[in-house]
């Protein structure tokens, strides 16, 4: 039917969607991260295991993420700022979505680049109660080269947002529990 190859196994995803209709409990995933304070505002977070399809799962390799603040915050800049990790998540998620939707629609991609900007008024985190702590707004700009019309490319990007976990997590409230063990 299609000769497009973006390297996404869409058939496996469609099969999974069908299989999970009859076994919704297998669709329950838990993603996990563990962090350890290093020094100052520097911490190291590792990710390796998660739960899904009814059992424990392990990534091919453990990933390590350094979080710190930049020198302009009077910190050592051993890694990116935690709030920048949200941009990593959003860009990664939307890009994966573009590739998957393009594959499903038989659209060959040649290049997909996203530029993400988050507007942040840092007076909030410094204690100004009238300013929120998080982003005021986030803007993602895609540059996509593909065998498709502009309208089709816009539709890819729109559908990718519609099915994006991170886009949802950022645009909708999430119940967050933080406790001391």
């Amino acid at each position, binding site marked *: 039917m299609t000769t497009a190859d973006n390297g996404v196994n869409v058939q496996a995803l469609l099969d999974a969607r069908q299989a999970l209709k009859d076994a919704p409990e297998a669709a329950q995933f838990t993603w996990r991260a563990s962090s350890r304070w290093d020094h100052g505002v520097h911490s190291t977070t590792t990710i390796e295991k998660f739960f899904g399809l009814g059992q424990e799962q392990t990534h091919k390799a453990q990933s390590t993420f350094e979080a710190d603040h930049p020198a302009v915050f009077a910190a050592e800049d051993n890694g990116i700022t935690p709030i920048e990790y949200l941009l990593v998540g959003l860009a990664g998620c939307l890009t994966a979505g573009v590739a998957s939707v393009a594959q499903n629609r038989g659209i060959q991609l040649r290049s997909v680049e996203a530029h993400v900007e988050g507007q942040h008024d840092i007076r909030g985190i410094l204690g100004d109660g009238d300013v929120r702590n998080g982003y005021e707004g986030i803007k993602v700009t895609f540059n996509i080269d593909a065998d498709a019309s502009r*309208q089709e490319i816009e*539709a890819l990007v729109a559908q990718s947002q*519609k099915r994006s976990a991170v886009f949802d997590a950022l*645009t909708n*409230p999430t119940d967050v529990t933080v406790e001391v063990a």
Partner: protein
Amino acid sequence: MPEHVTAVVVGAGHAGLAASHFLRRRSIDHVVLERGEVANSWRHERWDSLRLLTPNWLTRLPGQSYDGPDPDGYMTSAEVASFIDRFAEPAPVRTGFEVTSLRAGDDGFSINGDLRARAVIIASGACNTPVVPAFAAALPPSITQITPHSYRGPADLPEGGVLVVGASATGVQLAAELHRSGRKVTLSVGEHVRMPRLYRGKDVLWWMDAAGVWDQRHDEIDDLERARKLSSPQLVGDEKRRTLDLNALTDMGVELVGRWAALRDGRALFSGGLRNLFSLADLKLARLLDTFDAWAGDPSDERPEPTRVPARPRLQLDLTGGEIRTVVWATGFRPEYGWLDVPVVDAKGRLRHDGGLVEGVPGLYALGLPVLRRRKSTFIHGIEDDAREVTDHLADSLLGRSA
């Protein structure tokens, strides 16, 4: 002794009566059971200003077309009820007969324990119960809540601001009406279907009909589940044939906010994904208009302005501060199947059927659900083909022929 009939139709709305029309043509003895009166929901469960989305010339039932003076107009609920009344005249309707139980046995069906039938057609409607989110129960008590089922007009609501939730035809119509009543209106927008009232000088539903979009069959639709749960298009049966999309509401002064995602500490929290909902609806509309142009063999550059995004859509609204006095839930409806004692309803409360043939229960059928057999099934004129085909299948099954 229980009474025996060959077929029972549940519901005397347009769908059940269309089934009766074709059963009569085949001389299959049957009764149409109706909990209230003919066209009950059109009489008792619609707001006062409601008009059909489809123009009069398109509002037809098997063997009955509009013959009044205004083919391009749109019927009121009362006019729809009279139209259906006329259609019901020859039908064997038993009004005031509420079906409380339907059981399947070896030799057919048992209704309320005392009526037996070899086949049953469920035509009890798609919009029996309003759907509201679970957090509705936790809204501050100072907020009046109302659904389109009980809403009749602005006078039913207290003075003060209104939050309308949902941007289907219902949501945009009630937002506009409440705004005109002098209230400040905020509209919470989820996924929606945008349409202009007129395209290239003709009713957009003329194009849907003429270009064959509505004839697409259920087994030709890529994502049938999605097609069946699409909200109604943002249209109003307006005498002046005006478009009532989100830009029209913005021009009136209605404030748009994102999908209502959660309630926290008496505050409504709205999604920040409004832009993408606009993009999705605009892109979908552009594709639809392209389809019309392709059918016409004549491109046009008549394209609606993209939906304008508010400069800073509000992400939350304090429901305890007095700004909002009423919440109108235009968040959809679901059919009520509590009376079905056969396991044919899925975990999400939907009837499992293939084009109106209820899965796993031979002799049990459905009519009058969205995209039942075709895209047009959702509309009154869509019932004719569906009812003919479903009753054909029913008749063939009775004769032992598989359709």
